[in-house]
């Protein structure tokens, strides 16, 4: 019980951040609450490094939530963000959901490759290959004509 409470308080902010970035702030708390409810029921299976396991549960709940809604809630970003950051987010959102997930587990949620692999239920080697491809596709997306035009208009405005 004490061990679970300790993990709960330590991991709650990161599970909430994961849920908010994938399903929006409005449902993030509900998904986080449901994640820990499932984790409590299955706490005998909880590994010592619980975060990847918890994010794996949250990931399934995010998917369920998306299947049940007809539209996704857009994440609110600060209006004062630099153009380069906005551009990068746009390039990211042009990728497949799988590519976005691989990249954001590392870049946004700070997981090591082995932990991210655990969230996705694949081996570290498989994850590395997926990351490699996703990074390549993100790089390519940043240099498509659409982004080049946007970059040019930004420079000349």
């Amino acid at each position: 019980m004490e061990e679970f409470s300790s993990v709960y308080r330590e991991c709650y902010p990161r599970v909430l951040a994961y849920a908010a970035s994938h399903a929006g702030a409005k449902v993030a708390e509900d998904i986080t609450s449901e994640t820990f409810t499932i984790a409590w029921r299955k706490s005998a299976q909880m590994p010592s490094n619980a975060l990847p396991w918890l994010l794996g549960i949250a990931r399934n709940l995010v998917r369920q939530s998306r299947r049940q809604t007809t539209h996704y809630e857009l994440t609110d970003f600060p209006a004062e963000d630099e153009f380069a950051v906005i551009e990068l987010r746009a390039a990211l959102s042009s990728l497949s959901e799988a590519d976005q997930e691989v990249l954001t587990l590392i870049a946004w949620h700070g997981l090591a490759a082995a932990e991210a692999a655990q969230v996705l239920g694949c081996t570290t080697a498989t994850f590395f290959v997926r990351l490699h491809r996703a990074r390549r596709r993100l790089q390519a997306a940043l240099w498509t004509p659409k982004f080049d035009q946007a970059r040019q208009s930004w420079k000349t405005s």
Partner: protein
Amino acid sequence: MEDLLKDLAQAKPPTPEVDRDRMESDLARITALPRERPARGQFVRRFAPLLAAAAVIALVVVLLPRSVEPVRPAAPPRWWHVLTEERSLMLVGDPAAPYLVEFLSKTDRWLSRDTEVAVLQKDGTVAPYSRESEETWEAAGRPDTAPQVGGSHSVRIGPMKPALRKASVSGYQMSLHSDVRLDSVSSLPTDQAELRRTLESLVGEDPYRVATLAMDLMSANVSDDQRRAVFELLKTVEGVRYLGEVPVTEDRTGVAVAIKAPPTFQFSDVETRLLVNPETGLPIRRIDLLTTSYRDLPAGLPISVEDYLLLDSTTIDPIVPQDIPVNGEVESPIIER
């Protein structure tokens, strides 16, 4: 590439503030709920949909006292289904500044008394192994092919093309990498001396070949008693060390044996290990690792890993991809230079 991930980190959306009151009230509500009884095995949980049938069989084996004969179904299952994931490393490029590529693929194999069906190079890819390897590969101009270091062939970097093989066979072939074939695994003796003689009659008296054949047999469609006898024999083969319980993943262990392997064309100090699930007796992983450092590669680095994702008797016919020609050419990523 590395900078790209750093830039992406800058594009992270704002982290929502934690509502402490809700967090604590949720915790109180959650911990008032009943909990499930402990379940068996992380592996089974992870691959639950795939392993449902295997889990039932494994559970029966686990719950039976060891002295009791395994329960046998009224009609023998038609197929022995083995799904493995293979990962291996190879040094390629300029011999003065080589880099590592990783081969990654799955093999889905069904064996019956007279038929073998196999999907090879499933989900296969060859890619630079580490960030350093990736940088060397990029500096070399991201070549599609790279020459093996110390070998006469080249390696094709990128996705592998899956292949489908169907063949009528007699007897039981141990593995795709072995020509050894038994007339029937059911006739395999459980007596240690007889078993040793049987294996030596197939591969000679070379301890490494006997040990690796025994490792192959551990994943074959043998009875629980036969598998136990094979593992006990394995422990007694000259040069084999019993390592006891070793970690497989962060939260999972297996019992392992190890034997020094003959040198490959790239690596000389290599050890082959087999890790077995102590509850079911089924193999979990077979691994070749460096026992001494070589160039920049550390001792202990796995250069070849075979994970047994599924070992299962089934009456369900093989499920194979429909868009791959049967017995078409297998386009190996190892090509003529």
